[in-house]
């Protein structure tokens, strides 16, 4: 059981971070379909820097910075040039998948094995049975915990959040009240990319400890499902990511316990659960009204 709680945190954190990035963009009216590619790009450079013996902190910073820069670039293409957001996002995912695989092949796999970031045990809290595992984690996990309430407060309790959501729900109205919609969306995409960068860095530094081709393996798309199940709210995303990661951890649990279940059945569980949950909750979840729509007549 303790194993299951620990694996939920490690498996769920990249999903949660990418989902937070995605929902910040969507709340501002941009459907960031490049979560997968942004994560993968960051995971690649993080592993590259850390794998060449440089400090893990530096690798983390470079990963996040690259995520932010790529997010801004993707944002420029969809927000300023008004390219179709879904098509461009898918295109970015393909480009990054191909380029990282290519560089991985050119540089060679040897330089991509990294150390693990330090674990921090919170005195007292870590002693709680079961749930104590939540407080005996890589320090980056605590950053993830903290980002959930921060994002929720910013989005729902601040003027900045109101302007963001105005861009996402009624861009012409936001513009009429003096919000620079294009700039707001560009900033949101840069933040979104940086959070994906954090997700990719966490994946490498706290989970896989190395880069392999397509290390993200669809996590960016799963994060899109997490956003929907979490109904475009940070706390909801936390719940959805935890549910998915918990189901994913059952696979390891079943193997550790030698349960006599077909492995593939257990592995398919998180995906089936997500579909089922989406089917049940689907109608009640409504995306931001402007999501995916370019700002057409204004500048």
């Amino acid at each position, binding site marked *: 059981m303790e194993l299951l709680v620990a694996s939920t945190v490690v498996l769920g954190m990249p999903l949660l971070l990418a989902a937070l990035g995605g929902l910040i963009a969507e709340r501002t009216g941009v459907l960031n*379909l490049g979560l997968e590619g942004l994560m993968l790009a960051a995971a690649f450079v993080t592993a590259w820097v850390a794998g060449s013996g440089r400090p893990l902190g530096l690798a983390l910073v470079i990963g996040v910075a690259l995520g932010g820069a790529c997010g801004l670039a993707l944002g420029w*293409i*969809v927000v300023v*040039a*008004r*390219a*179709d957001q*879904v*098509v*461009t996002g*898918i*295109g*970015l*995912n*393909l*480009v*990054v*998948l*191909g*380029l990282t*695989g*290519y560089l*991985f*092949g*050119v540089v060679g796999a040897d330089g991509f094995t990294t150390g693990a970031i330090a674990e921090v045990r919170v005195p007292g809290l870590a002693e709680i049975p079961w749930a104590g595992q939540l407080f005996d984690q890589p320090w980056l996990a605590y950053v993830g915990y903290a980002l959930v309430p921060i994002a929720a407060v910013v989005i729902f309790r601040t003027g900045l959040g109101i302007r963001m959501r105005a861009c996402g729900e009624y861009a012409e109205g936001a513009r009429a009240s003096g919000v620079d919609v294009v700039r707001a969306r560009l900033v949101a995409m840069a933040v979104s990319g940086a959070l994906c960068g954090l997700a990719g860095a966490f994946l490498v530094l706290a989970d896989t400890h190395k880069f392999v*081709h397509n290390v993200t393996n*669809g996590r960016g*798309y*799963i994060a*899109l*499902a997490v956003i*929907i199940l979490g109904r475009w709210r940070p706390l909801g995303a936390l719940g959805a990511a935890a549910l998915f990661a918990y189901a994913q951890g059952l696979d390891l649990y079943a193997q550790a316990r030698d349960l006599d279940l*077909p*492995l*593939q*059945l257990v*592995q*398919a569980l998180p*995906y*089936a659960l*997500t*579909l089922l949950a*989406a*089917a049940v909750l*689907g*109608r009640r*979840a409504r*995306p931001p009204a402007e999501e*995916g*729509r*370019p700002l*057409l*007549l204004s*500048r």
Partner: protein
Amino acid sequence: MSAVEAGALRPTGRLPRVPEGAWPVLGVALSMLALAPLVAMAGASVPEAYRLLFEASFGSAFGFGVLLTYAVPLILVGVGVAVPYRAGLFNIGGEGQLLLGAFAAVWVGVRADAIADVPGSFVVPLAAAAVGGAVLGGIAGALRAWRDINEIVTTIMLNFIAILFVQYWIAGPFRAPDLSFAASPDVDPGFALAHFGRVARIPASVLIALALAGAVGWLMHRSRVGWRLRVLGLSPALAARQGVSPAWGAFGALTLGGALAGVGGGAEALGNQLHVGFGFSPGWGFDAVAVALLARGNVFAVVPVALFFAFLRNGAGLLQSELDVPGTVVITLGGAPVIVVAAIVGWRAYHRLRKGDV
């Protein structure tokens, strides 16, 4: 989608009109150009890389046959992505639909050996492949149509489920007993598709792919049903006024797309591999997304673009073995022109509107 919607308003801007067929040509040209820096960065000779690329597909009769063999799943899955795309939907589930289609075809091809020697018996496993793909596409379509769930998310989820489902069967109850690795048994030889030519081994499945692409192209671009789906993709509001049901349209487009991708898997299984193993698909489902987007959803354009991707995939092997240029470079060559063309198309739609011509 909205950029397309904006284009549908048909304002008369000062930007010159671009015929629809020009975009795939531009995409393919950009893709060929993008290869040069990637080869150079890997420290290999650029002219040599282009020479090897052409040699792989056109240097020998055998290579040409491989080109056509690669093209079959790319054409069919590409059409399976293009049909929903024109209806305003993104089918990212080609990989799972292809695999489940192949599995269904092989399952029928192994179990229904009693009818294997009837002339034209291959139609039966191919129909099973269509059903297999249609089930996956249909689930995503139903969730989109009646539960409002984004089809990108559901088709990706269904990919994982389909892959694990097939892995369960071929590693367990449906595993060929005499093999050292996990794979299904071979289909009955009576179901296998013929090959033409002694050296080239041009698969008969090419004819099936071309015929189906032609039929679906007619359906999408010449028939009333296709017109309705395309109106739905351009403007759901306009479609509703024309009496097109968005729900049934979405369900139908994704189901048809899934069925076509499934047939792609079935044609590959019956025409080439004859069984389903763990590495059945080298990523056709994802290449096909790039194919359909570069073809901008035009079914007729999917065929040449798919042939171009088969040409890249075929050459990638030689680039890897002769020049040490990693084969994944092909994925980038698919994605980069998709972004550039999307940016140009979006920018043009925006600037037409901004000129105040609406």
